[in-house]
């Protein structure tokens, strides 16, 4: 698996090196790129991107940056965190491999998300060296995430498939809006975690690809051109729009994920550090899984 990833990265690097010789943007293709701008039959991605970036993207990110933590702050103040006794039996739920993979992804996100915000609010930070450094970090820390995203997807795929429990979970929003501690239907991952799984995996891959497009700018993807009928520049515009829009979701859920593990459920973060989950926690928040484990005599 990793071999392919290395190859992928190497190809991108090589393709970018070759850009000057056969540019898709400034070479022969430039004519198509220019003609395609804002034409009736085109997707009008140029004006669309300009409009979105000029008026909306930064504000929406700001909204997410303030709104989501703000909502959680209120939640914390009004409803409060769930506290479970940590003296009960534990179950070894995440092996070392799981944890390493997760931690690599976690570190990547911890760098990628804030640096992303620095780029979005680049003018606030005055541009120049610092923002450029953040931009490069933003790209650099994509590499570890790129390496672990597939293993992570595979190791949790089974648990992340949606089922009937999730409908019920969504109907009560996982019980987070009440202070009561009654068992909530959920497997090893509840619907919220599953949602995060899919956003992190599919969204993550989308972010990697659209980000790579923007980072390398000018590599040959004839297959994609043929498939989509889009010029290189339009693909770049699409990538920029997708990267931003997907960014909203990833960032929002990332903040949620952090809030849940760090604040909403006291000590939950320990489970991904040590690998052990608390019985009480599982019993209430993942009751379906708890039953299964109980039947197997794991507790």
């Amino acid at each position, binding site marked *: 698996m990793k071999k392919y990833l290395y190859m992928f990265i190497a190809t991108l690097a090589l393709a970018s090196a070759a850009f000057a010789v056969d540019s898709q943007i400034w070479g022969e293709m430039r004519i198509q790129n220019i003609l395609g701008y804002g034409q009736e039959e085109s997707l009008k991605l140029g004006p669309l*991107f300009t409009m979105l970036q000029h008026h909306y993207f930064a504000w929406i990110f700001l909204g997410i940056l303030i709104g989501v933590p703000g909502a959680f702050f209120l939640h914390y103040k009004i409803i409060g965190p769930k506290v479970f006794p940590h003296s009960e039996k534990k179950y070894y739920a995440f092996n070392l491999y799981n944890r390493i993979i997760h931690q690599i992804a976690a570190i990547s996100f911890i760098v990628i998300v804030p640096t992303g915000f620095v780029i979005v609010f680049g003018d606030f930070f005055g541009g120049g060296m610092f923002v450029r450094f953040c931009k490069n970090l933003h*790209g650099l820390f994509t590499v570890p995430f790129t390496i672990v995203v597939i293993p992570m997807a595979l190791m949790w795929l089974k648990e992340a498939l949606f089922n009937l429990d999730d409908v019920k979970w969504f109907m009560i929003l996982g019980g987070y809006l009440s202070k009561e501690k009654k068992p909530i239907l959920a497997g090893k991952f509840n619907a919220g975690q599953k949602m995060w799984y899919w956003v992190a995996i599919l969204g993550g891959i989308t972010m990697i690809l659209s980000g790579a497009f923007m980072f390398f700018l000018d590599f040959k993807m004839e297959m994609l051109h043929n498939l989509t009928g889009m010029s290189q520049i339009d693909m770049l515009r699409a990538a920029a729009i997708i990267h931003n829009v997907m960014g909203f979701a990833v960032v929002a859920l990332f903040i949620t994920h952090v809030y849940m593990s760090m604040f909403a459920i006291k000590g939950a973060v320990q489970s991904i550090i040590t690998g052990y989950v608390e019985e009480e926690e599982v019993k209430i928040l993942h009751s379906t899984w708890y039953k299964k484990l109980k039947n197997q005599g794991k507790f």
Partner: protein
Amino acid sequence: MEYARMKFYCDEHRCIECDGCSVACAEAHELPVGIARRKVITINEGIPGKEFSTSIACMHCTDAPCEQVCPVDCFYIREDGIVLHDKEKCIGCGYCLYACPFGAPQFPREGIFGAKGAMDKCTMCAGGPLETNSEKERHLYGQNRIAEGKVPVCAAMCSTKALLVGDSESVSAIIRTRVSSRAKGASNPLVWDKAYKNQ
């Protein structure tokens, strides 16, 4: 005082794709090979009646989209309409390229992974935000001919004077003269012969 806006215009009736403008530009500003601030493009090459060429660079748009999308706000528009940017502020994100209708912003490669360096584009030979005609300005942005009262080098070197530059009013006056004299085609004696004598 209201300044007229400085504009480029390429008369495609005159442009012959000699690339004099792009070579003059690269030479004058000592650009790295692979950076084409200006480029001549030809449409429908080899097809009689449909082929024409035009020279493209930053067109110094009135509502410059690049300026609107830049996340670090490194663009500024001079009073005379020349759109410039601050290379020391630029982070090389590429957004201006996506917004630009002309593919004008160029990105040199830096480092082993091919990260984009600070954006480079046509300055209408007006340099950048640094001290005028300083060594650093020349190094980062190329010559500042406007400050010396000279025409941008591309237009100066244009072999057929297809590429015009100046305040929008004088440019449009030149084009108007060319177009109106071309339109005299209607008084072609051959046409009038057909219209009157042969009937």
